[in-house]
């Protein structure tokens, strides 16, 4: 293959010497990470099981999985960096470039896409001036189209730092990213008040969210989660009563207040 194909890539082709080994973390970072890494390894009968959470841990340090992070994981588990790299590159949540402080994922799998996810994703790209898997210049927001996130009854779905923003439309999604960039407090429909991408990665590494009340935020689920239960209790849903006139999604917020307290967050 000629070099022309590579010229558009971010880094020019390096001929000659292979890449030098990554630098280790500075001593103070290692001192901070070591107890966490030991706690992770202790959760498992065999140490290698700790690799996925360790990768989340190094991602919580840098906002992505760097070569240094890979080296750190390898050293903790007695693996080669090649072995760790093979794993890190298999899973989509491990980023190879820094995420924004808020990582926005728009579901564009079939159901969300058809219900409007494609349009949301297109308009967000235009609005933010970035493409898929890119980050805004100020580093505040990165954007990615994601696969089905198990929230189809709330479609179209947007995730920010893996918290649910249900029932989005282009206007609400643009407002959402504007708020994120402005540093305004943003509350998911299901989940806790947003923390940064790095802090989220730490929860994924298995360290519980220590913020008071975070577990209890946003109730047990929105209207779709409660739909069957309400019918079983003899209540009516929008559009199922005598007057079938309601377009449900638009009216949820207006109709909901008393029954599902978690819903209005």
């Amino acid at each position, binding site marked *: 293959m000629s070099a022309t194909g590579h010229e558009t890539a971010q880094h020019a082709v390096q001929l000659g010497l292979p890449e030098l080994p990554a630098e280790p973390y500075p001593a103070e970072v290692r001192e901070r990470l070591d107890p966490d890494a030991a706690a992770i390894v202790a959760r498992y*009968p065999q140490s*290698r*099981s700790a*690799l*996925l*959470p360790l990768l*989340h841990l190094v991602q919580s340090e840098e906002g992505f999985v760097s070569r240094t992070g890979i080296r750190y994981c390898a050293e903790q588990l007695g693996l080669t960096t090649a072995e760790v790299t093979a*794993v890190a590159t*298999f*899973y*989509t*949540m*491990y980023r190879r470039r820094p995420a924004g402080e808020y990582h926005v994922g728009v579901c564009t*799998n*079939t159901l969300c896409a*058809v*219900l*409007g996810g494609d*349009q949301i994703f297109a308009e967000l790209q235009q609005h933010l001036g970035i493409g898929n898997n890119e980050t805004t210049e100020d580093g505040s927001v990165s954007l990615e189209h994601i*696969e*089905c*996130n*198990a*929230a*189809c*009854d*709330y479609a*179209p779905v947007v995730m920010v730092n*893996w*918290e649910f923003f249900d029932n989005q*439309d282009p206007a609400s999604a643009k407002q959402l990213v504007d708020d994120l960039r402005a540093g305004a407090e943003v509350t998911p429909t*299901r*989940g806790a008040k947003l923390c940064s991408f790095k802090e989220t990665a730490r*929860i*994924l*590494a*298995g360290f*519980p*969210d220590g913020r008071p009340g975070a*577990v209890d935020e*946003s109730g*047990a689920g929105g209207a*779709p*989660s409660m*739909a*069957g*239960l309400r*019918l*079983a*209790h003899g209540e009516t*849903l*929008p*559009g*199922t009563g005598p007057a*079938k006139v*309601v*377009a*449900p*999604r638009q009216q949820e917020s207006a109709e909901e207040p008393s029954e*599902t307290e978690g819903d209005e967050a």
Partner: protein
Amino acid sequence: MTATHPEKLLAPVLSATWGEEKPWTLATYRAHDGYKGLHEALRMNPDDVIALVKDAGLRGRGGAGFPTGMKWQFIPQGDGKPHYLVVNADESEPGTCKDIPLLFANPHSLIEGMIIASWAIRCSHAFIYLRGETVPVLRRLHAAVQEAYDAGYLGQNVLGSGFDLDITVHAGAGAYICGEETALLDSLEGRRGQPRLRPPFPAVAGLYACPTVVNNVESIASVPAILHRGKDWFRSMGSEKSPGFTLYSLSGHVTNPGQYEAPLGVTLRQLLDISGGVREGHRLKFWTPGGSSTPMFTDQHLDVPLDYEGVGAAGSMLGTKALQVFDETTCVVRAVTRWTEFYAHESCGKCTPCREGTYWLVQLLRGIEAGEGVPGDLEKLQDIADNINGKSFCALGDGAASPIFSSLQFFRDEYEQHLRERRCPFDPSASTVWAGTRGRRNAAGKDRSPEDDPPGDRGRDGRNGDFDQSENGVMA
């Protein structure tokens, strides 16, 4: 109107407490008979617990429908090896959205079920493999497991029984394939999530090559109620071969998407009847009974009983009971293309038919959807799908072939229309949620072409009669 009373049709068990005050807490769970099933189990011999779950007829809720008690029974006892229970909470099948809301609202049902299952199979370390992209659920699982430790349900000497159990919550990192049980085990061992050759089955050589049970969240969460209320109660719901209750997840172009917990064997028509039907002014075009990997159905299948046998006999699979409903504004080629892109993206690369086949399916489908298809493409699609189905290493390949086969079976004319007109005849904006208001105006008589002239319908033989039938309930 064949009025089915929702109160009679539905049977909330796992979802029964979701409307209560903080249902995710131990206090609320216990106030509604929580952990009574565990007390019952610990009074029993572990083998009797296995026998009870087997006799109750509980079948796996993750897609395959394998009897849960039998899976437990396969674990060799007295072999001197550690035994493991691994809960598959990697819910990622497109359309599937039951375990995540269940764990968000009621995580203790899973934890109690895990303790009972661990007692039964003599396991002292159990794992929850939760997909990583759902942090709100992870947060509640962390809290619930801690609560269970603090209350003496976990740790050393569970409730004075002499049995020890630890539960580790493990967050995945984004890979659909890890929902396949052997790929999940490799992933849990810190490797790339690629499926293993079977045999040996996990029951013999699973996690760390030790006997392992891998169960879906909903399967395990259904166990406490069986212990507490008995197998006869469980068998009073559903059918002989598919007893019990389950979560049906309705999504897409419906008036009220959401979770509907009911005895196995309800029909989509019944669920639409009670929930407000397809979104107003539109009609059902196609739907999946259990996620994108289950062959799609059409309005011919509204009365198929949604249990393992019923859906199987109609040519599909119950799968995860993810009822994704699409109306006449949806281009089936677009839908299938997107699903196929998903399978290509998620193919782990281990076996050639799946890795290469899904790639080429995507190339063909994108061409057809963009109006660049050529004669022979449909035969080629069918041929490639045929070379994936049953010939790939795991079920991901079969799943990728399902939407191809079933859409060609029911909507071949729509593919042909794409080829003939060299364009997609659908307006994607008509299928969005926010097209709803405009759609209603159209129904009231204004212009706009896409809804008024849905392509594909014309050529579908023998279908038009069904549209009238669908008035009673299926259409809002």
